[in-house]
């Protein structure tokens, strides 16, 4: 008897909860596209471990939307950016994605984590909703289908020019320290860099895997220092960047370092002077010396509008929106449907568009190709490397 | 006449401690045996060895003439050896009746549908025999200590075991409760139940048991007729001599 009563109450409680949820959500997802507003859903990791970058992506996207709206919107229609926090969590990201593809958004944008993007892309493709990913170092992402685009250049593409530059400066051997639990780092450490090194005639003295959560880098660092390379690739993330660099210095390695765009200002600051002479590629840095004009003008206008310098994440968020805006402009006053947006995106991708990360930003297989910039950490700040190959991505100028 | 339960030269050593050191004894059908000994003399270890919770270092255990030294506790239970523990061990969250059902539901006979029904009937019968049937739907934790013990005994006898081991069933009880339990044990003996009663109080078992075993320092000190055995000087010394030594 008492069991039955309890079960009944349970079911009652559950159904009440579901009904509440149903009512709560019907307001946001129901209804059709409003005539004079174009809705964009931006899913971003604005809390949790990815928040530092995720928030900047959103800031850049918001800035772009504000700019476009200030100029009267697209074809007389204002943009409405809805930001959803995916909390650096795959479940939250997938949940937000399935919700977004059923909403009246013209497209879904996402930054930042590859793991999440990988799970979201097939949903977009199945639902036939345009999906534009920022960041995400994984190449496989656009393989999901013709509705999926990526606006950040795969950083591996920059490595050839970066290594050539170091080679030109006299480096004839390199060692590699990489996070073996990060897909991008694994690809770059085991495929990209060895291939480039071979082409350049550089020898690889050691390849040492570490885990992002590792705390003892003295031992891998010893191994690398003992192999006496001219330069060392440091493909680690988070605090491991600081720790590994300090460990390398402590183990006796004094030469230049190079690595991923994850090195960035935030990660190198704690390392300070120890990280002096570290090179990494980026799609954008807030420097007036940036070798393409749209980048420097974005820098000054963003600074004027918001009072702070845009990070590469802000530039990335901006360009995700601008890519979509370019497509919407092509549609003009026409019917904005998921399909028409997809077709317009394909057309824009063919021509390229002007963004903060390139003038123009081109596309190969729906993934962005931008000029890039070689960054050097001078111990206190990131600067455009003095011996800058321009563009960093040699292939950039060659492609149409 | 074969013994229901027999220990042959049982030794149980925990590390260097010889808890039981060469005990042999046999329990005769229909008798109420008592195993007495001072605290720490190895009584509970003997019971645990019989019910197979403890594996002896050496020696053999026979149940109904079969060697069960290697069998698990659940197996000897299914073959008719039931026991109670020193502390009350009723399951919280189950009613009195459900607790007694635990005593029959794992028996091989309860596997079929008809068997389950007969088992439930046996449980209800045991509740009545122990005079706790009116408490069937009550949570046992709310009951007085003596009643809880009767529920436990009901659980132990519901499956109609060949032998019942009772580990200090009256420990910590008031005089009234002891009386109550001793009456219950007397009734079970009258019904022909073979029992082994573990007790540290010699006087309690004297009027009750048919056969007495005295254990000291893990060895059998004496065995036989209760009154005669209890009068032996060695037995007196073991009990009186240790009386003032805290265990």
């Amino acid at each position, binding site marked *: 008897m008492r069991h039955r009563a309890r079960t009944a109450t349970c079911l009652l409680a559950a159904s009440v909860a579901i009904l509440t949820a149903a009512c709560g959500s019907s307001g946001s997802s129901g209804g059709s596209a409003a005539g004079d507003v174009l809705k964009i859903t931006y899913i971003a990791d604005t809390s949790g471990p990815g928040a530092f970058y995720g928030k900047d992506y959103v800031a850049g996207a918001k800035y772009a939307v504000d700019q476009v709206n200030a100029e009267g919107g697209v074809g007389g229609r204002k943009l409405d950016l809805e930001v959803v926090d995916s909390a650096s969590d795959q*479940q939250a990201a997938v949940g937000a994605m399935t919700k977004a593809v059923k909403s009246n958004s013209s497209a879904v944008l996402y930054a930042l984590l590859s793991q999440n993007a990988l799970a979201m892309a097939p949903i977009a493709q*199945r639902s036939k909703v345009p999906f534009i990913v920022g960041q995400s170092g994984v190449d496989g992402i656009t393989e999901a289908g013709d509705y999926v685009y990526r606006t950040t250049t795969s950083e591996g593409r920059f490595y050839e020019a970066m290594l050539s530059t170091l080679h030109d400066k006299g480096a004839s051997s390199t060692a590699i320290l990489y996070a073996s639990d990060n897909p991008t780092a694994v690809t770059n450490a085991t495929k990209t860099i060895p291939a480039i090194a071979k082409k350049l005639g550089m020898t690889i003295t050691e390849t040492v895997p570490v885990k992002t959560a590792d705390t003892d880098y003295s031992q891998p660092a010893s191994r690398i220092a003992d192999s006496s390379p001219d330069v060392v690739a440091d493909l680690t993330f988070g605090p491991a960047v600081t720790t590994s660099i300090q460990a390398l210095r402590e183990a006796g390695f004094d030469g230049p370092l190079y690595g991923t765009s994850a090195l960035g200002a935030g990660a190198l600051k704690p390392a300070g002077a120890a990280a002096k002479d570290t090179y990494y590629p980026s799609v954008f840095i807030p420097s007036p010396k940036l070798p393409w004009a749209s980048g420097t003008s974005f820098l000054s206008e963003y600074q004027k509008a918001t009072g702070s310098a845009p990070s590469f994440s802000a530039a990335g968020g901006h360009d995700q929106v601008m890519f979509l805006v370019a497509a919407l402009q092509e549609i003009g006053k026409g019917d904005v449907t998921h399909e028409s947006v997809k077709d317009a995106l394909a057309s824009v991708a063919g021509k390229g568009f002007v963004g903060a990360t390139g003038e123009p930003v081109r596309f190969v297989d729906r993934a962005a190709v931008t000029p890039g910039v070689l960054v050097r950490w001078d111990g206190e700040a990131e600067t455009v490397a003095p011996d800058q190959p321009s563009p960093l991505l040699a292939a950039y100028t060659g492609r149409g | 006449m074969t013994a229901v339960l027999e220990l042959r030269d049982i030794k149980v050593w925990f590390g260097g401690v010889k808890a039981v050191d060469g005990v042999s004894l046999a329990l005769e059908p229909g008798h109420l045996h008592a195993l007495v000994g001072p605290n720490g003399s190895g009584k509970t270890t003997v019971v645990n060895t019989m019910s197979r919770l403890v*594996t002896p270092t050496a020696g053999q255990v026979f149940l109904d003439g079969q060697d069960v030294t290697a069998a698990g506790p659940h*197996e000897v239970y299914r073959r008719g050896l039931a026991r109670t523990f020193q502390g009350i061990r*009723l399951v919280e969250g189950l009613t009195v009746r459900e607790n007694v059902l635990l005593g029959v539901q794992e028996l091989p006979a309860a596997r079929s549908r008809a068997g389950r029904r007969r088992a439930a009937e046996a449980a209800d019968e045991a509740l009545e025999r122990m005079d706790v049937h009116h408490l069937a739907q009550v949570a046992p934790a709310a009951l007085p200590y003596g009643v809880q013990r009767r529920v436990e005994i009901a659980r132990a006898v519901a499956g109609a075991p060949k032998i019942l081991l009772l580990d200090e069933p009256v420990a910590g009880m008031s005089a009234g409760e002891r009386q109550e339990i001793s009456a219950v044990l007397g009734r079970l003996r009258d019904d022909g139940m073979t029992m082994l009663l573990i007790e540290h109080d010699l006087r309690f078992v004297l009027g009750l048991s048919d056969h007495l075993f005295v254990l000291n320092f893990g060895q059998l000190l004496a065995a036989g007729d209760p009154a005669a055995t209890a009068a032996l000087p060695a037995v007196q010394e073991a009990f009186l001599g240790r009386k003032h030594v805290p265990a």
Partner: protein
Amino acid sequence: MIDWFSGNEGYIQGALVAALLAASVQVALRAGVLSFASVGFYGVGAYGTGYLTATQGWGTAPAAAVVVIITVFLSWLLALVLARLRALYLAMATIAFVLLVQIGALAWDSVTGGPLGLFGIPPALGTGGVAVILAGVLAVNALTQRGAVGRRLLLLRKDEALASALGVNVRRQHQIAFVWSAVLGSLAGISQASLLTVFTPENLGFSVMVSALTALVVGGTWHWSGPLIGGVVFSWFLSAYLGFASDYRGVVEGALTVVVLVFLPKGLAGLSELLDPRRLRRAAGTPTGGPGGVSAGVPGGVSTGPDRPVPAPEMGVSS
């Protein structure tokens, strides 16, 4: 309604898988086995199905069948190895097992896709399929919550020595619970792989174990509906409606969990009890602590009576 469903499908799918995973931990716990091993088999299920379907081109049904058979075999072996361990020691050993599975997933590139994981897994099961699996599992759990099986399980987790002295083959029961738990974990993995179409080492590991146990305990450890409630709360409601907390999401989630743990000893499933006046009256008339012998009053109120399974030889089943 259909609009609403499809709009929330991602969250619902997450809740279903989370509920399956929580149920996998629960079925072990019900028999007194504090094991996380099912999370390892979640990985086995997901990678196994992913590999057989996406890489080898099998159909989802035969792949799932093979994976479940492998799970039964492996978990049975593991149960034999871990037979002597109890409580936190078993928890620790199974945590280690799950982390080894994760390391294996990272290292065994050719099958698991290494750190990149597997993608392109065919979405054959669908939300409905997983819901049917979960409903079946919950029905079995609900039915075995009462009757002889329910009593046996309660006895097992409250007092192992007593259980064996009442004819319960403790080791066998633990093995059955362990294998059943592994199978449910594996089913959760098969479902997750099929729903998400991707599976990576990040879908595995410590945080997954912790979420499964959290969902279970907050939902209601001992009630069949606990995993469902926990799954719905954590993978759906909190995922979907904690946006307002933004940066403080983790704080709100943690605080809610602590509050439920402190004030609802039976989890959210116990809420219904609070609402049931008859039980309330009965509870008021019944002291919860047992008398001396049942659960000795000890510091902190933790019962260390006979219901506490310890890996000492005289308490375990030594056969």
